[in-house]
């Protein structure tokens, strides 16, 4: 699995766009909207190598924060200049409002690509990168408000361990969110999806990234992953409550959510 992602890292974003016809962006947007983070949220994004979820999180929190600040400024109309100047100096006007995201991935190349992307796109504060294993996270207990793993958990050897670690590092009240390929129940869509997966995707992989095998692996790993209900049960086994899932694109992708109480 490691080598697949080593060779895939650089072309990751391009391949995602071509394979999913750009729809992966929508899926990720939906994930962050579902999360609906408020400023001050601490997010752990696992297997988030190239930073897709992290950047969306930061954008979301920034815009929520801007709206908050605008509302507050409107109420400040009656303050003296002195008071206004003072409030600018306080932390109250931090653009991220203390939100932070830690991106953890097992693959160095993916992290480096993500870090570079962050620099290129101008993301600096509130973002950290850690090389780590989802089955053995280097984080202390009860630390994070949200744990996300987008298109990463199917590559973990011991999914149960990753789920247990997710539970451990979340604060009580924290939320687990997983965006992953899932199972299509509609027979027609399923046939079309299979055709696309096995005929088109590896070819795209060869043409764009010069790598048929890695993309064939990706397609196979998708098929091996447990369907919605089974994965839901696994999440419950790890201790999460109120576990449910939302199908996207006919079940090609699903967002599973759970809470630590």
């Amino acid at each position, binding site marked *: 699995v490691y080598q697949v992602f080593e060779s895939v890292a650089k072309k990751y974003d391009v391949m995602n766009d071509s394979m999913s016809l750009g729809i992966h962006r929508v899926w990720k947007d939906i994930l962050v909207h579902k999360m609906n983070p408020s400023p001050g949220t601490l997010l752990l994004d696992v297997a988030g190598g190239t930073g897709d979820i992290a950047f969306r999180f930061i954008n979301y929190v920034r815009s929520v924060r801007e709206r908050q600040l605008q509302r507050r400024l409107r109420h400040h109309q009656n303050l003296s200049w002195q008071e206004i100047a003072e409030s600018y100096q306080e932390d109250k006007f931090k653009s991220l409002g203390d939100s*932070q995201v*830690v991106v953890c991935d*097992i693959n*160095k190349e993916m*992290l*480096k690509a993500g*870090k570079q992307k962050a620099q290129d796109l101008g993301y600096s504060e509130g973002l*950290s*990168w*850690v*090389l*780590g*294993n989802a089955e*053995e*996270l*280097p*984080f*202390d*207990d009860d*630390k*994070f408000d949200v744990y996300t793993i987008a298109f990463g958990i199917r590559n973990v050897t011991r999914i149960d361990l990753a789920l247990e670690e997710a539970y451990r590092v979340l604060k009580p009240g924290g939320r687990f969110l997983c965006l992953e390929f899932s199972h299509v129940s509609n027979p027609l869509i399923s046939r079309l999806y299979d055709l696309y997966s096995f005929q088109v995707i590896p070819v795209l992989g060869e043409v764009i990234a010069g790598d048929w095998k890695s993309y064939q692996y990706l397609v196979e790993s998708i098929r091996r992953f447990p369907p919605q209900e089974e994965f839901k049960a696994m999440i419950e086994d790890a201790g999460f409550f109120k576990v449910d899932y939302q199908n996207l694109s006919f079940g090609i992708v699903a967002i599973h959510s759970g809470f630590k109480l």
Partner: protein
Amino acid sequence: RRAASGSQGQGQGSGSGSGSSSAQPLEPSLLRFLVCPLSKRPLRYEEATNELINEELGIAYPIIDGIPNMIPEAARTTRKKPPAEGSKQP
């Protein structure tokens, strides 16, 4: 010996040995959450070698390009007296 490191504003920075690692400092807020993945116990940041040390188990995790490598297999044991450089690369 002083190596000119590329990190922002920090004059020190012993060259952490192996060629590809730059002495980029760790994001300080990370130290709040990071623990040893094996024992889940706190770590000590060693500025001289740019590593995160677990004293109890005697292992050190390298920080490369500002990214801490918290994979147990990549950690170096600190027990025997190694030279300061030479953190293992995965």
